[in-house]
């Protein structure tokens, strides 16, 4: 049971993280490197998103996906896809915001200095990603941390269906409310282990950055 729930958690969180990184990193680089009208409004949205309560995000997704709602025809409510969607909305601002901060912390003239060397655009992007590597890893870890420990949104849109949408956090909540503390503690230990693994990874990254 624990294995199945853990794998399900990793599957849902992994998928959400993958999409969040694919969108958030390019978006963060773009927002960090370019100056255009409306940029600060977009940055404010990202910053607000970084602090948005997950349960509210879940409620928003649920309001879209419920039957008779705008996206109700997709029949995604109480599916893993709905959970991925909700977690994506939680992780995306985190990944974007931290990437943006990493790009913004580079020397103001970084892009000009690389451009003057005649480096082609794609190679320039690669050099930029190399330069902000510690920031990117921090963005990924923060995104994963944000969705791995989250319970409100996945409960709302996933419904904690056994073998389908049950993940570590929703399972802990369920077992605890049923008084089955042994199972709850076992699952909590697994979740805690995953989080500790993330913390260790983050510390390593920060140390590499400082060296």
């Amino acid at each position: 049971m624990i294995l199945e729930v853990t794998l399900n958690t990793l599957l849902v969180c992994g998928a959400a993280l993958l999409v969040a990184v694919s969108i958030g990193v390019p978006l963060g680089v773009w927002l960090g490197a370019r100056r255009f009208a409306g940029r600060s409004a977009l940055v404010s949205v990202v910053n607000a998103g970084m602090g948005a309560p997950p349960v509210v995000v879940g409620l928003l997704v649920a309001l879209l996906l419920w039957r008779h709602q705008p996206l109700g025809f997709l029949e995604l409510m109480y599916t893993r896809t709905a959970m991925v969607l909700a977690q994506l909305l939680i992780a995306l601002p985190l990944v974007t915001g931290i990437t943006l901060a990493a790009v913004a912390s580079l020397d103001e003239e970084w892009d000009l200095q690389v451009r003057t060397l005649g480096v082609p655009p794609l190679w320039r992007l690669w050099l930029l990603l190399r330069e902000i590597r510690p920031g990117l890893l921090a963005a990924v870890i923060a995104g994963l941390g944000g969705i791995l420990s989250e319970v409100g949104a996945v409960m709302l849109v996933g419904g904690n269906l056994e073998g389908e949408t049950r993940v570590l956090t929703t399972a802990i909540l369920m077992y605890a409310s049923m008084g089955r503390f042994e199972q709850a503690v076992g699952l909590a230990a697994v979740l805690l282990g995953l989080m500790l693994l993330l913390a260790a990874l983050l510390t390593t990254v920060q140390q590499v950055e400082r060296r």
Partner: protein
Amino acid sequence: MSEARRPSLEACGLRVRRVSRRNCFELRVDALSLDPGELLAVIGPNGAGKTTLLQALAGLLPLEAGELRFADAQPPVLVFQRPIALVGSVAHNVRSALRGARLERAAVAARVTEALAHFGIAELAQRRAHGLSGGELRRLALARAFARRPSALLLDEPFEDLDRAAQDGLIDDLERVTRRAGLAVALVTHDLRRAVRVADRLAVLREGRLEQIGALDEVLQRPGSPRIARLVGMTNLLPGVARPAPSGLAVDVDGEHCIETRAPPGAFAPGAPVWAGLRPEHIKIDIGRGAGVPIGKGAVERVRSDGALCTVALRWSGHEIQAHLVAGRGLARTIAAGDGVLLSVRPEDVHVLPREA
């Protein structure tokens, strides 16, 4: 032969506008060219647009108007005042600059080795670039730019924040490498002494305009305006009126003191208000009789030495003027405030400028 004489870099009718919330700055350069192997120093006060000029020449700024032409279609490379180090080794930094050059692996390796050796950092090739000292990073930035084989190198305050020894070493290496490679260099600096040391030509930039450009000696000895005169170290500007004299033209400072010049007699009408411009190093101070034509006695007010140069501030005909002596030698060892000295200057060293009455 005509190929060899083609300028490395040419700018015609350049107009660049930089608008920020606080101000709007416009750079206008009608014509500027750099020949292979020549070193042009651009000086100017803060906010004159020196960095903007270099960025425009490097093609990094959108042009409102004008045209840039580079020899062999190789754009110049700009080395910024605070060069960045890319994550990775020193060699990786130079290699990265060659990504767009479509060279074979062996050619890239050869260029990296050559560029690092030229700037004396071959032994640092495998070091992390982020761990370099300020001087080493400057050398890396120059090697990185040089490896591109650009039409010209554009250097923004390349010797800033370096100690004297590091500056001297870098200037020597830069001169040797660029002269040997026939590479044109334009550098901006606010330090006239460094500009004088390396430049073939000197340009004076002010408020986005090139006020004067010419051979180094020409600009230093014959500045186009009192403002430029002060900027290029002609600190003694004495107001007077033009008088015909046997040598050509004299500047009558106060009826009693007259300075002979070699300016052509017809350059200024008799009685026209003018400035007599004198470089401090051209004023001879002597207890007895100095070389050149005496201009009268002066009283020493202050003596300051920086170890190499001794600056003597004198009161002469009611004006404060400055003269330079080589520190620690001859008169410089004994001269003190309160001394009365005889001043003289060679007429050919006096530069006459028009003055508004």
